[in-house]
């Protein structure tokens, strides 16, 4: 059965088509519904998310003797499809918990479904929602503010006085921009310009030229995945010599491959898992991160080199910890409510990205232990002390 699940998962990944595989399993199984972007422009994030979840499933396939069943759907990088997937998982597959997804707008669409269906949801991306209105939602990602604060602290250290911004013309671009403006105001750094481009754009020369006419000390980008490489390439081509900063949405190997050797020394924040082997031995998340790498290698026959698969793993850690404290029969309303209560009272669960403590009324559960700064050097991430 397990090999069948793996085989199906692999086929799904390879073909990247929307295939939900519901297994005709025993009634007492706990059902987890995952919707991620296996195709479309967000798939460079979505595919690792799905692979990380398979690794997590292999790492801890059952809780208190109950098997966990994972149902994976592809949202095609489209928020509308993500919402529809969430509804399908809630109503047809009757899952006990939702997880997802790789895009911020899509995650917001899913969170709304989770709220309406009174279904706990563990998000894997940093999204901004009214916590009071979304009691069924928590996310394992670091809040964008926490990450951008780290970048802005670094800017101050680097002596940057003004920073220009270029990011996606969508929710992610807004999120990073707002966080940057907030953090920069506190640090006395001026934010110049707010240029945007679409994920599918082939050139950002115009936007970059506009930023350079403002003569900023540094540039901060708000992109994600391979499309996020565009501003770095354009800035290098135009001969920009100042420091370039990114954020955690960019941390994946395909970004490095596309950026190539053009961009040296760009600094971005990430969860410590990316540079787990460079961390001090007593770093709280180091051991779990190394365990995760081992199981990921075993399940996917490839090393894990991105931050996204680790979010899935952390989501699974939080989920299984909460499941162990959940009462009732899976599939019932009591079970879902009890699971939600267990999730929002999570204490000191160690994941790969950080140590999680959720409280009712808060979406995020990480602290400063969940961020480090890294630098691209010759196509490798190097820990910036």
């Amino acid at each position, binding site marked *: 059965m397990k090999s069948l699940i793996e085989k199906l998962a692999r086929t799904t990944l390879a073909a990247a088509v929307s295939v939900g595989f519901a297994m005709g399993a025993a009634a007492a199984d706990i059902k987890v519904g995952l919707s991620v972007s296996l195709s479309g*422009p967000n798939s460079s994030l979505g595919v690792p998310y799905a692979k990380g979840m398979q690794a997590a499933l292999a790492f801890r396939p059952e809780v208190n003797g109950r098997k966990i069943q994972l149902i994976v759907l592809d949202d095609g990088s489209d928020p509308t499809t993500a919402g529809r997937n969430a509804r399908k998982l809630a109503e047809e597959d009757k899952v006990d918990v939702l997880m997802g997804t790789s895009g911020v707008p899509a995650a917001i669409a899913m969170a709304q479904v989770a709220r309406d269906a009174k279904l706990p949801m563990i998000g894997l991306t940093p999204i901004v929602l009214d916590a009071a209105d979304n009691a069924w939602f928590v996310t394992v990602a670091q809040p964008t503010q926490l990450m951008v604060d780290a970048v802005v602290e670094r800017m101050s250290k680097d002596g940057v006085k003004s920073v220009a911004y270029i990011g996606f013309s969508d929710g992610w671009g807004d999120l990073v921009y707002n966080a940057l403006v907030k953090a920069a105001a506190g640090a006395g750094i001026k934010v110049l310009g707010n240029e945007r481009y679409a994920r599918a754009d082939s050139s950002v020369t115009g936007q970059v030229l506009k930023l350079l006419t403002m003569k900023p000390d540094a540039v901060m980008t708000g992109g994600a995945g391979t499309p996020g490489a565009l501003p770095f390439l354009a800035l290098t081509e135009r001969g920009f010599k100042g420091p370039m900063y990114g954020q955690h949405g960019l941390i994946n190997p395909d970004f490095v491959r596309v950026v190539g050797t053009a961009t040296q020394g760009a600094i971005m924040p990430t969860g410590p898992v990316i540079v787990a082997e460079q961390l001090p031995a007593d770093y709280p998340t180091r051991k779990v991160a190394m365990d995760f790498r081992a199981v990921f290698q075993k399940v996917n026959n490839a090393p894990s080199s991105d931050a996204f698969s680790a979010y899935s793993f952390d989501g699974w850690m939080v989920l299984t910890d909460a499941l162990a404290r959940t009462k009732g029969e899976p599939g019932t309303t009591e079970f879902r409510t009890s699971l939600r209560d267990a999730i929002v009272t999570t204490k000191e669960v160690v994941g790969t990205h950080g140590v999680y403590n959720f409280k009712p009324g808060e979406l995020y559960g990480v602290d400063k232990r969940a961020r480090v700064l890294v630098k691209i050097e010759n196509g490798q991430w190097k820990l910036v002390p």
Partner: protein
Amino acid sequence: MTWDVALILSLDGLANGAIYLLAGLGLVLIFSVTRVVFVPFGDIAAFAALTLAAFETNRLPPTIAMVVALAAIALATEVGSLLRRGQAARIPMAVLTWGLLPLVPCLLAWLASRPGVPASLHVAAAVLLVVPIAPLLARVVFQPIADASSLVLLIVSLALHFLLSGLGLLFFGPEGSRTQALVSGSLSLGDGFTVSAQIVLMVASAIVLSGIFFLVFERTVAGKALRATAVNRVGARLVGIRPARTALLAYGISSVLAGLIGVLIAPVTTMYYDSGFIIGLKAFVAAIIGGLVSFPVTAIGALAVGLVESFASFYSGALKDVIVFSLLIPVLMLRSFLSRHVEEEDEEVDQ
């Protein structure tokens, strides 16, 4: 805006315009000869780019398998139609043209994928490999419905686009690739202002290819046959031109253009399996400016689209595409004022 910014934007716009120009020529050529708006044009360009990327990473491009499969289907279609018409004697010829001819670029591509092959051969093999795609698709899909209404042809063409872009996802994965620059270095225009050689190459290719286009259309029999078919299919047929054959020629030429676009654009932009569609769409705007018939006006339209896009990205990055596609509205209004509306004529042409 300062002069050097305007200059850089213009150059960037011209480079993009050069790409749209080549794509626009291909679209207009196919449309004028066959009445098909060939939506998969951009996908073929993306295939060329990603095939080149596959060569560079020492992988065997899956495009080879696709061309072989397409050739087999086209051959079966051709043999079937020959048998139905009782022309079994022409089967060996069909095997040669439909079965074996498309395999030549596949063989070359297979040889090029072996280690130690110079980069220039990779580029040539990538272009050649995508050349059979459009003619083979046309034989299988468009030739049997050549006399259907333009709307049917457009819908079939859209369906083909989705098929090809799905195959692209299957073959090359969701991730984008960049290829090595075809030419390195840059030209100095004085005052510390430089133009990258790749942009010069893109613009020069567009100029040279449009020149060749012009010569072929004005000076060769095949070009004249293409023009004749575009002007009037029935008339062309009466003077001994076979529409099916000219259509294949048009598809073949367009496929070459698509291949060249792919290898020209791959070093300067990250190509994804679905990147071709947007290129095709913007070239379509240019083709519409040319009324889907005029090559010179399409060329001017393509350069205009490139420049507008470039300057729009400076003024408002987020609204860039909105501005480019809004170009269509005044153009279409002007066109509908200027031209007499003709009902689509029912041409009575079979193969």
